[in-house]
């Protein structure tokens, strides 16, 4: 073979190689080295807004504003206040507040997916939800309506928005009622918010053992946190079983280890499209808030919704899980852990695949041993009791029952 005869094929191969390299892949190749998150990186505090006169509860974010609710009574002040924070800068500035009449606790607060509504749950003095108009005024939103009914008595413990088939609904977890005349079990109440000024009660259903504590709604699937009755998945329009918000049809249930199912998040990975995992918060009975708490974060594989199975867990010694928010672009779950501060977990990829040395005796994978703990915030603050977290961009806002609202820098956790 001559040099001329070999140069032709080489040139062709080179041209093909260059042409192939210049093509845009429909899915970018994953570079494992670049995607890797740090392990247990400290999440620095960059801002701190103070609420010394009340115990702060949940936090919700909407654009340049954050809303924090309040709990119980502190120094004689009931938990009837929602603080409105300007969060344009790192230092949150209390811009205004809402005082909710006839409420001892406003434990849950949430913003609707279209940013139009702020919902605040009230407890104990007859339960209700307050619906405020954020479009009219985000700083001092006017009250649209206060919804209360016999079904919301004695209190709405948590309230979540969920959109099903284009219609916005509110999902209210109602406290059980105990009186000398008898007891009424906890219940889930669903409101149709097509007209927020006139909510329509479409479902009142007893559930939970002893509570229905919280819900998560996505793609027509309702996840209910039923304490010792575990996590139940319902078709309310997306499960193919004919369920609706007015008539949910149960798809499956799982009893996670330890019970006490407190809250849940069904994770959709924005990069891979995977929808395999639901994360469950367990709130263990016992402890003194700010000093100690208990309860793991549980990972449930819901790829077969009729037969969900727990595959992994995350444990913080001396601290227990509370509410979550997930950065689905970067595959990072942020969890409030009361006195354990804020924990960030790398939840991208297969959480059920681990070595023998990374498994608990019952076979579940231990996310801590898998080095999935990507970041830790507020661990050096005492006392601290983180109730809720919200993530946007490179910041996480963490509501601290003791002091108010922390802002953490999580730019290290972007991929």
């Amino acid at each position: 073979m001559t040099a001329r005869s070999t140069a032709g094929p080489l040139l062709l191969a080179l041209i093909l190689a260059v042409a192939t390299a210049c093509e845009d892949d429909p899915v970018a190749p994953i570079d494992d080295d670049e995607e890797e998150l740090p392990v247990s990186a400290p999440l620095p505090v960059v801002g701190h807004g103070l609420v010394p006169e009340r115990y702060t509860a949940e936090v919700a974010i909407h654009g340049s504003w954050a809303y924090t609710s309040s709990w119980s009574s502190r120094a004689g002040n009931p938990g009837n206040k929602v603080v409105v924070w300007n969060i344009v800068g790192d230092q949150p500035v209390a811009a205004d507040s809402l005082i909710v009449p006839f409420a001892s606790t406003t434990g849950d607060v949430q913003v609707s997916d279209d940013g139009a509504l702020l919902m605040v749950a009230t407890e104990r003095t007859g339960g209700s939800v307050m619906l405020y108009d954020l479009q009219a005024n985000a700083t001092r939103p006017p009250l649209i309506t206060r919804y209360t009914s016999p079904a919301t008595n004695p209190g709405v413990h948590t309230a979540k928005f969920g959109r099903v088939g284009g219609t916005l609904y509110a999902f209210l977890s109602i406290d059980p009622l105990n009186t000398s005349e008898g007891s009424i079990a906890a219940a889930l109440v669903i409101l149709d918010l097509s007209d927020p000024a006139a909510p329509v009660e479409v479902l009142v259903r007893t559930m939970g053992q002893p509570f229905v504590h919280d819900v998560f709604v996505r793609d027509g699937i309702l996840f209910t946190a039923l304490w010792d009755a575990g996590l139940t998945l319902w078709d309310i329009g997306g499960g193919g079983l004919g369920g609706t918000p007015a008539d949910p049809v149960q798809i499956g249930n799982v009893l996670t280890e330890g019970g006490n199912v407190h809250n849940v998040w069904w994770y959709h990975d924005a990069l891979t499209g995977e929808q395999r995992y639901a994360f469950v918060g367990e709130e263990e009975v016992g402890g003194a808030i700010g000093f100690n708490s208990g309860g793991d974060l549980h990972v449930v594989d819901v790829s077969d919704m009729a037969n969900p199975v727990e595959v992994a867990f995350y444990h913080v010694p001396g601290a227990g899980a509370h509410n979550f928010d997930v950065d689905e672009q970067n595959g990072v779950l942020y969890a409030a852990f009361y006195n354990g501060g804020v924990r960030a977990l790398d939840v991208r990829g297969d959480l059920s695949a681990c070595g023998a040395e990374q498994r608990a005796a019952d076979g579940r994978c231990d996310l801590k041993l898998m080095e999935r703990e990507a970041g830790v915030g507020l661990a050096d603050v005492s006392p601290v009791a983180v109730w809720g977290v919200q993530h946007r961009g490179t910041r996480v806002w963490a509501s601290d029952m003791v002091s108010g609202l922390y802002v953490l820098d999580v730019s290290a956790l972007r991929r």
Partner: protein
Amino acid sequence: MPHGRITHARWPAAAPPARRPRALRLALAALTLATSTTGAAAQNHAHAPPADAPPTGALLHLGASATGLLTRAAPALAGRTFTEGYLTQPVLTAAASLAGGRLSATGMLNLEGLTLRRGELTAGMWGEGYVDRRHPHTYLHELVLSGRAPVAGGSASLSVGRGFAPFGTDDPMARPFVKFPLNHHLAQLPERVLASAAWARGPVVAEAGLFTGAEPRSPEDVGGLDGFGRSWAARLTALPRPGIELQVSTARVAADQRIRGIALDHRKHSASARASVPLLGGAAYGLAEWARTSEHEEGRRVYTFESVLGEAALRRGAWGGALRFERSTRPEEERLSDPFRTPYPHADAHLVGVTRWLVVSGRAEHNRGVGPLRATPFVEASWQTVAELTGSIYDPVEQYGRADQWHLSVGLTLGAGMRHARMGRYGAARTEGHAHAP
């Protein structure tokens, strides 16, 4: 006198008037309905009935008493001083004896549901949804029927009804102070539907009982049989010397099955020494007690609360005085829009904190008779200080304004007819002794 059979010092008579008006004498007679019996019951019983219970031979005795009370608490909440008035412990009491004492009944109606619905300012006190206020008792505070017979050289009894489980010490209503100690829910188990057995021989009394675990939810709550038998208590009492009483007891209280929410099982322990003896020409009383309650969920210990209390009283002539020291821990829980109330039960599962209270109290009283009435004006004062023990988010200085507080109470107790006896012991377990109450 057999060993352990006590002839304790009687309280000095309440200054009887030389001559009572006829109408008052009739009223007094109406409160004391007595018929003649043989007194065999007392002979069969290792311990004479308490002097304030119906004397041997009485069929039915009735009594009534109430206390008007003015309390000033500084600070009571967030630095503010509260002054409040009450009609507290308005009670009607009854005791009956039949069949030569082999059958007996004791009962108390408590009307605090009418007079004390918001509770009585008592910093540190908690229970049944009240905090820093003592809750009103149920209307039917006690109604217990007992049957007694000689068994194995002693006296045995069976008692059924609603009252005190055989655990701990006397109800504070039957003790010197009107203001309750903080440890009421650690040291007694009142207002339960119960069935208990007792056996007394010589200086020893043994008791065991089954009862309902549920605490009352309101003054109207007469309780039911739900959960009866899932809770039990046992108490052993020794009477080594006249006027001296030692007890140890334990109880397992099953979580209230009626509650929709989180309810915990309780394991309780108590030990105490009680004295009721003549001293300095008067009548002296003393009590030292320790009590502990640990709360469990599915067998796992979740919380433990503990109390040490000592109190002493002396009455000489018409005057009396008392001192009390207490060191108790309590749970701090979520509070409602009324900061003196807590939800029952919690929707969540944590305490806000655990506090320890040191309380020193003093009391002075003057006992006198006004016709058929016993009248006891008194003054009570207490100083208390509170500290959070766990490092939780709860700060008692935020709650009260200061860690230390003063309470001052003045009041007048009026009573007629039978004094209520020591509360919490039935049938053969009724050791001798007065209620050391006004």
